[in-house]
C-alpha cells in the first residue's frame, strides 16, 4: 500500500518559549505548569520519529511573544507554492500571522490572504482528502476558530472544492482533532465533534472511516501525523491501534503530554509543506 500522498515534509517550531500563558480552549489551564525540559524532549522525539518514518522536517525560529507558534499546523494552508496565512480568532495568537507569512514569503511561496474580517485557522481546521476518484477535497471545520464565511473565500483562493463541517464539541475545537486522512479510502474520524450534517458529509466522502468513540477522540488520537503508511500518534487507544495495523499501517506512539496541556497533539505541532490541492 502507498499510504498518504502528502505529508513527507513538515514545518515545525521548537518549543523554547512554549507555555500555557493564557486559556483559549478547555484544555488550557494557566495554573498548570509546563515542564520545559520534558516538552523540549517530547518535541525533539517527535522530530526524530517523523524523520525515522521518512519525513523531512524544517524549522522556524520561535518568538517569545507568541508561545503557540509551536503549533505550526495553524500557520495557514499550503497548496503547492501557494500559502494562505491564518487569521486567528483570539488576539493572543493574532501576532503569529505576519511571522508565518514572512517565513513563507522568504521561502518563495506566493502568500495570498483571506479578507481581514474572516477568521480561519489554517491546516488546524482544514485537511485534504483525496478519494480514489482523484479529486482532492479540502475538509474544513468551522464554528470555534474558523468562520463558515471564510470557507468560500478560501475555496476561491485555493481553487479546490471545500466541504464545510460544523464543529460542535468545544473540546474538539479544531478539525484536526476530529479528522485524520490516512489514504484514499480511510480516515480517522471523531463524529462526536461534528453536527449531523457534517457526519453525513464525511460518510459520503470517506469509504472506510475509523470511527472513534468519544473517549478515544478525547485522547487526541485523531491528531496524528501520517507519513506514508506510518501513523505517529500521541497515544494509541488499543482498538484504534489494532484497526490501523489490520489495515497495514505502522503505528508509532510519540507522547506529547506537555503539549496536550495546551490542547495540542502531534498534528498540531506540524504543518505539511508538500500539500497540493489542485492538479
Amino acid at each position, binding site marked *: 500500500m502507498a499510504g498518504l500522498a502528502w505529508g513527507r515534509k513538515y514545518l515545525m517550531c521548537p518549543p523554547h518559549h512554549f507555555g500555557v500563558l493564557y486559556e483559549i480552549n478547555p484544555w488550557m489551564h494557566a495554573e498548570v505548569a509546563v515542564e520545559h525540559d520534558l516538552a523540549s524532549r517530547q518535541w525533539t522525539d517527535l522530530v526524530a520519529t517523523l524523520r525515522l518514518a521518512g519525513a523531512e522536517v524544517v524549522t522556524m525560529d520561535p518568538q517569545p511573544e507568541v508561545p503557540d507558534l509551536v503549533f505550526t499546523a495553524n500557520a495557514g494552508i499550503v497548496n503547492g507554492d501557494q500559502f494562505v496565512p491564518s487569521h486567528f480568532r483570539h488576539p493572543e495568537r493574532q501576532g503569529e500571522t505576519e511571522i508565518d507569512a514572512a517565513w513563507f514569503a522568504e521561502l518563495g511561496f506566493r502568500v495570498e490572504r483571506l479578507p481581514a474580517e474572516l477568521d480561519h485557522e489554517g491546516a488546524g481546521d482544514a485537511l485534504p482528502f483525496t478519494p480514489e476518484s482523484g479529486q482532492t477535497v479540502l475538509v474544513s471545520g*468551522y464554528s470555534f476558530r474558523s468562520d*463558515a*464565511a471564510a470557507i*468560500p473565500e478560501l475555496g*476561491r483562493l485555493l481553487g479546490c*472544492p*471545500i466541504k*464545510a463541517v460544523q464543529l460542535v464539541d468545544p473540546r474538539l475545537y479544531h478539525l484536526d482533532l476530529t479528522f485524520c486522512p490516512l489514504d484514499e479510502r480511510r480516515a480517522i474520524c471523531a463524529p462526536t465533534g461534528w453536527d449531523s*450534517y457534517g457526519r453525513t*458529509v464525511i460518510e459520503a466522502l470517506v469509504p472506510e472511516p475509523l470511527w472513534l468513540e468519544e473517549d478515544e477522540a478525547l485522547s487526541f488520537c485523531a491528531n496524528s501525523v501520517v507519513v506514508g503508511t506510518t501513523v505517529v500518534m500521541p497515544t494509541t487507544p488499543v482498538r484504534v491501534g489494532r484497526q490501523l495495523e489490520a489495515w497495514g499501517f505502522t503505528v508509532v506512539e510519540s507522547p506529547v503530554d506537555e503539549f496536550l496541556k495546551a490542547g495540542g497533539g502531534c498534528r498540531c505541532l506540524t504543518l505539511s509543506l508538500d500539500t497540493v490541492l489542485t492538479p
Partner: protein
Amino acid sequence: MATETVTLSGHIVDSLLLAKVLDTIVDAGVTYELVQVDIGRTNTDASTARIKVDGDQQVLDRLIDELQLHGANRVSPGTTTLVAADTEGVLPAGFYSTTNLDTDVLVDDQWLSVENPEMDCAIVITDDTARTVPMHRVRIGDRIVVGSGGVRVHAPETLRGASVFEFMSSEVSSEKPKALIVHKVADRIRAAREAGLKVLAVCGPAVVHTGGAPDIARLVEAGWINVLFAGNGFATHDIESNVLGTSLGVSLAEGTPTEGGHSNHLRVINEIRRHGSIAAAVEAGYVRDGAMAACVRNGVPFVLGGSIRDDGPLPDVITDTAAAADAMRAHVPGVGVALMLASTLHAIAVGNCLPAGVETFCVDINQAVVTKLADRGSHQALGIVTDVGPFLGHLADELGA
C-alpha cells in the same frame, strides 16, 4: 412582517450547508423563498443561494445571527442615493423606477415605507416620508431616489382570503362557472367594505351597450361602488340611454337602430354642455336615471378621462391626460377592490395607478384584454371572460343592491 435576504456560497450542496440553513430557517418558524440558486456545474465550481426570509423582525434578527454562523450573510441593502431634481417635471438621470409593489427606502438608517405604491414613478423623500411621484409632478429641489441601493421591494403577499384566487388561479378562462365567480367577487366586495376599503369601478361604453348601466346605478345607490372612472363614451351613452332610450342610436328596449339615432349621443352631449356639467343636468332634471345620475345623487366621485376620439366631449371630461391621471390618483388611496368593466385602454391606464395590493377583477368578453392588463404589469388582475351586462345584473342581485 419583515423581509430579509441572505446569501450563502461555496460548496453548499455537497457540504449540506444549504440543507442545514434551510432546516434552521424552518426550525425558527420562518417562511423562506429560494430567490436564486446557482449550482456549480462541476464539483470544483462553487454554488450560490439567495434566500428570502419573511417573519417577525425580532425572530429574523435572531435567525440571521444564527445563519451567519453557517456563512449565510444578510444581503447588504446598499446605500440610498438622493439627488435633487434641477428641472420642473424632469427626474434626475438614473432615477429609481417604481413597481406597483410595497416598497421601502433606507433613509438615515431607517426604513421608510413608500406611500402610494404605483408603477413607473420615482420615489421622492420629504422629511421622514417617502412617496411615489409621477415624472410630470416632480418639482425643482425634490429629493429623488437614484439607483436601486437602499431600496427593497416586498413580494406580493398572499391576498386576503386567497380562496377566490386559488379557485381562479389567476388563469384567464372563459370556461369557469360564472355564477360561482360572481358569488366570489361579491364576497371580495363585501370583505373590502367590511375592511373600510373602497370599491372602484372602471366602466367602458360596452357596459351601457350590453344593458349593464342600470345595474351600475343600483350598485352605486346601495353603496357597493364608491368611486367610478370612465371616459366620455360611457358617460355619454349612459345619459343617452336614459334621456333618449338608445345607446349609440340603438334602442336598448328594441335592439334596433332608431331613425337618425347615429347623432343621438351628439345631441345629448350638446345639451349637457348647455347645462355646464353632468351634475347640473341631473339637478335640472334633464338626466333622471342611470349610472352617472346615481353617482351625482349619491355623492360618488367620478373621473372622466378624455381621449382623442371623443365627441364633444362632455364638460366633465378632463382632456389633459396627465391631469386626468392625477385626478384618478387622488382617489386611489383606500381602494381595496377594482372592477375593470369592459374597458380596455382605460383599464390599463387605471391599472398602472393601482398598488399591487388592490384586488382587481377584469370583466370582458375578450380574453385578450385581461392578458394585456397583466402584461402591462398589473399582475394582480384576475380575468373573468363574460358578457359584462348579465355579469353586473348577477353581481347587483348577489349583493342585494
